[in-house]
């Protein structure tokens, strides 16, 4: 179908964009458009106005410091996927981005747009939660940073006001010896995942897990941290038994079924993805630690 009529604005500055949002009822921000345009074409949404932020070039780009990764909200997904410095620091970004849609959608789609759309299976939201990202938003009252667990307020509900725009996402990189994995299952490559598992781990010279983060996408109404699994891994030897314990203990996770897959099926898929992701991340961490000591 075709989009319903709307008023179209393309401000040249962030201030103008916020001012338009502030004074306009029922306006939506148009970032990369890879979800919003589809929803407009299907007439799932009827905004009175679109505020196109594609000319806000200041809020695009990847900045990498030793202790901070800052990605502008309008950075295209394909740009993040191909950024070599980011890949060397945190290879999980490329691994996750390769699973986001297809090259044509990644050429337009942005990190800020993905986070604000907040699909439960969104790889970027799952990754942001895994990395305890801080989401920077700007509104009439100025800029603020929102911890990702406060930003994710519910099913496709980002924690920002109607007159705020997400401008950047900040992450803290892990040590050079961390292990990573992002695994998901979808019926066709590029579809929304039935379930996904993202894992980061650190191990010491004896193989003991000294840090662990696990994020599960697709299973519930939002991406979720698997805190019980993290606790079980921490201090363990990272063996098969430790992996199985973390995979088994899904009690605290929300599970929702839909016509793509029932709750039990999603849980079963999430467990398989988590088992594979833990296995891969733990062996990558061991390898990196081994190379460091070689």
């Amino acid at each position, binding site marked *: 179908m075709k989009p319903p*009529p709307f008023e179209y604005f393309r401000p040249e500055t962030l201030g103008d964009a916020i001012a338009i949002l502030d004074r306009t009822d029922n306006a939506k921000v148009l970032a990369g458009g*890879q979800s919003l345009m589809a929803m407009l074409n299907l007439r799932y949404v009827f905004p009175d106005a679109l505020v*196109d932020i594609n000319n806000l070039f200041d809020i695009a780009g990847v900045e990498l410091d030793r202790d901070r990764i800052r990605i502008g909200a309008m950075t295209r997904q394909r740009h993040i996927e191909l950024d070599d410095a980011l890949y060397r620091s945190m290879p999980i970004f490329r691994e996750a981005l390769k699973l986001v849609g297809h*090259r*044509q959608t990644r050429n337009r789609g942005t990190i800020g747009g993905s986070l604000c759309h907040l699909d439960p299976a969104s790889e970027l939201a799952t990754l942001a939660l895994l990395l305890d990202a801080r989401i920077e938003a700007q509104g009439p009252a100025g800029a603020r940073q929102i911890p990702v667990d406060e930003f994710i307020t519910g099913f496709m509900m980002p924690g920002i006001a109607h007159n705020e725009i997400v401008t950047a996402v900040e992450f803290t990189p892990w040590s050079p010896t961390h292990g990573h994995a992002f695994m998901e299952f979808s019926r066709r490559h590029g579809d929304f995942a039935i379930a996904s598992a993202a894992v980061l781990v650190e191990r010491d010279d004896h193989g003991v897990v000294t840090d662990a983060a696990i994020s599960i996408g697709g299973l519930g109404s939002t991406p979720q941290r698997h805190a019980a699994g993290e606790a079980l891994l921490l201090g363990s030897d990272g063996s098969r038994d430790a992996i199985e314990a973390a995979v088994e203990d899904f009690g605290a996770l929300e599970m929702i079924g839909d016509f793509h897959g029932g709750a039990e099926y999603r849980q079963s898929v999430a467990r398989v993805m988590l088992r594979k992701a833990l296995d891969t991340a733990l062996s990558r961490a061991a390898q990196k630690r081994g190379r460091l000591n070689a």
Partner: protein
Amino acid sequence: MHEVALLVNGEARRGSVEGRTTLADFLRHELGLTGTHLGCEHGVCGACTVLVDGASVRACLMLAVQADGAIVETVEGLARPNGDLHPLQDAFRETHGLQCGFCTPGMLMTIVELLRENGAPTEAEIRDAISGNICRCTGYQSIVDAVLKVAAEDRGAP
């Protein structure tokens, strides 16, 4: 209405569009470039893939007004003005990469972007690149063969 001026296949084009007009509809209805096909109109099928400033995009997921000032390439721009086919189009013909032809313009534009980035893609890279282009005839194998053929010719193989 919004005035737009853009370069389409090397030609300066202008138009007056509603905010809600997609780039795909503008190309087809205003400029008469019906080579860009529309299948699903929600970004899944890939038939409407065109290049905007060199990057492959879904023309159904972009507004025409957003292409103001852009360089747009569509399937009509692939063949030479004298009618000689683009090497990729030739390879599609040679390997039977077309069946009904509906997905072909999107496939071609996606692969043009791939080959500009990487003149010698592997079969896996080709399959990954066209994963966002659906062929209802399921003729993927001969499409992959066409790309491998062009890549091999590029390297001077027979």
